[in-house]
């Protein structure tokens, strides 16, 4: 048979029929399977969505989660998944010990640290009848989700969104963490105390980073220091040229420190590249809470850099809280990992959600929105007092200082100080 190029011309009609029958069969079978599956799933989740009542048995409430299991916050997201299972177990035990015949189930979806996916997740969770959703993690995601939540009366509790621009009263968004207005004060005090007089702020060009940088600028201005700002685009795979631009800016302005506002993946990438820059290894580095807990920062390249530049970061942490120590021990026992940033806020968010549902008496978004602040007023957990302020954000938030220290098991994150009464107090000396 003649070969034209690398294709053979099929003979007409005789060869064609078996081909088309196969095609029809291949289309029909998945169609039938798909329809059958669809019916099955619809049947299983029917009956009021968020609430199923089986007579003389437990009432089951569903709590939705949209977590960043992939994307720029994936390292923290994976730790959060474990916190979720721990918290749900604790919640169910607590509720049973009070005599309620109730069980809470978690429905976890991954939002890839992307805004669109977060909105999609909230929409699909609400279509399943869920009225309380914990997450999303990033402030930009919360911004996108807000309109839908407000219109459809879904209570959204974010454990980690810290941008002050989302501190809006009377909406359905609650945040069990204080806004960055407070953290900017802590971070600027930390840097100032450590001798930073000409800092460059290198920040994410998104909701979180932009707001943080502005507040840092304000706080530094109050101390009489002018800062330079350099933003970087988020979502890139590598930041080597951004770091090079940062290095030339540091050199040209004679800066003495860099303040980095980042998430996990970009933070680790930037720090690794900075470790190779002579200029950037000579200045002090300070960092926000974003990358805390991410194992990429414990790579030897970054760990060495951290001790060289005496890297300090701030993060939301309730000072001297025995419940936090307890939480830390249990996480270590059960999963073998240290809790990362916002794990305590997440834990309390879940507890609050459960109790708010019970106090509301019905699984209704409006009712839960009203009972949530009431429950929070008297709740004390690993993240401290859960009370909300008028905008639905955590009213009392302390900040701690962390560092990356070298131990026998490699590099670890360590809380080395606290921000108390307007100044930073170090509880231990981490860098010799």
């Amino acid at each position, binding site marked *: 048979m003649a*070969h034209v*190029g*690398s*294709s*053979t*011309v*099929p003979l007409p009609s005789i060869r064609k029929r078996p081909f088309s029958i196969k095609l029809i069969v291949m289309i029909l079978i998945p169609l039938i399977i798909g329809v059958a599956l669809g019916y099955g799933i619809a049947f299983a989740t029917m009956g009021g969505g968020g609430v199923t009542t089986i007579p003389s048995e437990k009432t089951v409430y569903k709590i939705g989660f949209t977590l960043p*299991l*992939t*994307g*720029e916050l*994936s*390292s923290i997201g*994976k730790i959060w998944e474990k916190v979720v299972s721990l918290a749900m177990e604790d919640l169910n035990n607590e509720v049973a010990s009070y005599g309620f015949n109730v069980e809470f189930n978690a429905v976890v979806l991954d939002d890839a640290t992307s805004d669109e996916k977060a909105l999609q997740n909230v929409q699909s969770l609400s279509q399943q009848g869920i009225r309380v959703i914990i997450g999303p993690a990033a402030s930009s995601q919360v911004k996108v989700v807000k309109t839908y939540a407000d219109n459809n009366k879904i209570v959204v509790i974010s454990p980690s969104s810290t941008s002050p621009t989302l501190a809006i009263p009377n909406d359905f968004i609650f945040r069990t963490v204080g806004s960055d207005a407070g953290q900017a004060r802590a971070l600027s005090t930390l840097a100032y105390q450590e001798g930073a007089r000409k800092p460059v702020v290198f920040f994410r*060009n998104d909701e979180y980073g932009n707001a943080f940088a502005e507040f840092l600028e304000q706080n530094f201005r109050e101390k009489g220091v002018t800062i330079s700002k*350099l*933003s*970087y*685009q988020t979502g*890139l*795979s*590598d*930041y*080597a*040229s*951004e770091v*090079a*631009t940062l290095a*030339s800016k540091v050199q*040209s302005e004679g800066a003495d420190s860099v303040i980095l506002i980042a998430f*996990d*993946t*970009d933070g*680790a*990438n*930037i*720090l*690794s*590249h900075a470790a*190779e820059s*002579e200029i950037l290894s000579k200045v002090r580095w300070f960092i926000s809470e974003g990358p805390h807990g*991410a*194992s*990429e*920062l*414990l*790579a*030897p*390249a*970054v760990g060495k850099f951290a001790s060289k530049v005496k890297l300090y970061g701030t993060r939301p942490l309730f000072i001297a809280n025995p419940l936090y120590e307890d939480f830390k021990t249990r996480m270590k026992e059960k*999963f*073998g*990992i240290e809790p990362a940033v916002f794990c305590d806020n997440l834990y309390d968010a879940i507890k609050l959600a459960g109790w708010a549902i019970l106090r509301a008496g019905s699984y209704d978004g409006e009712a839960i929105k009203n009972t949530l602040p009431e429950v929070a007023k008297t709740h004390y957990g690993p993240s401290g007092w859960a009370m909300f302020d008028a905008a639905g954000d955590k009213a009392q938030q302390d900040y701690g200082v962390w560092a990356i220290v070298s131990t026998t098991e490699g590099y670890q994150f360590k809380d080395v100080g606290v921000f108390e009464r307007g100044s930073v107090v170090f509880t231990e000396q981490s860098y010799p």
Partner: protein
Amino acid sequence: MINFLQYMFFYIIFSLPLTLSYRTTKVINFVHANFITYGAYVAVFLHGMFGNTSILLAAIIAFLIVGSMAVLDNLLVFTPLQKRGSSPAMIMISSMGLWIAYRYILYMLTDIAHFYISKNFVSYGRITYADVPSITLGGVTLSQSFIAGMIAATIVILAIYLFLEKTRIGRAMRAISDNEVLAGISGIPKDILINLTWFICGGIVAIGGVLWTSFSGAITPEAGDSMILQVFTIGFIGGLVSLWRTGVGAIIISAMENIGIAFLNAFLGVPVSFRPFLTFATLITTLVLFPPLGAGGGLPYRFRKRRLLK
């Protein structure tokens, strides 16, 4: 400046195989991005699960694994489609489908690995290898990835050149790329050679991926995807046929990304986020000025030039 050279090494390793694979197989291959990512992840898994710190071992294993992946692609997807008479556009779209499928398979693999070894493989930190030195020359520290990149890029260039020019198999490959029908008639086993081309191209890109793990601060399953724009632009500057023009393209794009954006930022205040824009602009300029496929002018460019001379 160091960054410019570093990226140049990477781009050479990533884009030369793309040109080589296109001109021999006529498939615009989007799975190229996944070759990079899978190469990187072979190194990541070896490091995370087995504690491997030898870059040489990782490179060899990555070469083999991703090379076989490429051959499988060809055997299972591209060749059957070509036999049914699909147009090149259809095959390109099928490669896009593979690209997406491979990405999510990798997500699944990282999740499974996470389940067993509770490390986060979806975002993995930089790997410091034990068998590549980091040299300090006259006050400038050349990092591990720089040395490894330099060695690897040089070896790749030499190897491809020697292979294509000096060996019979290499010359046979060039014959297929120039004129398939004649090559087939003169007794060259086309299918075997095409599979071999895929194997080599996939393998070389995988080595680049392994090197990427020693350079990048965080490796995710989307690592290759973000570089695919630059790699294809470089390929188009080389017309997807001419290897040395591809090399020139690598130098140009690397220069623009690192030195160019630094100048623009320092003197014109252009924000650094414009970096991908520069690459896009180059891509569009190249395609518009030199149709149909970039600076090389498409296949067979050698013959086209001769016809013009007449």
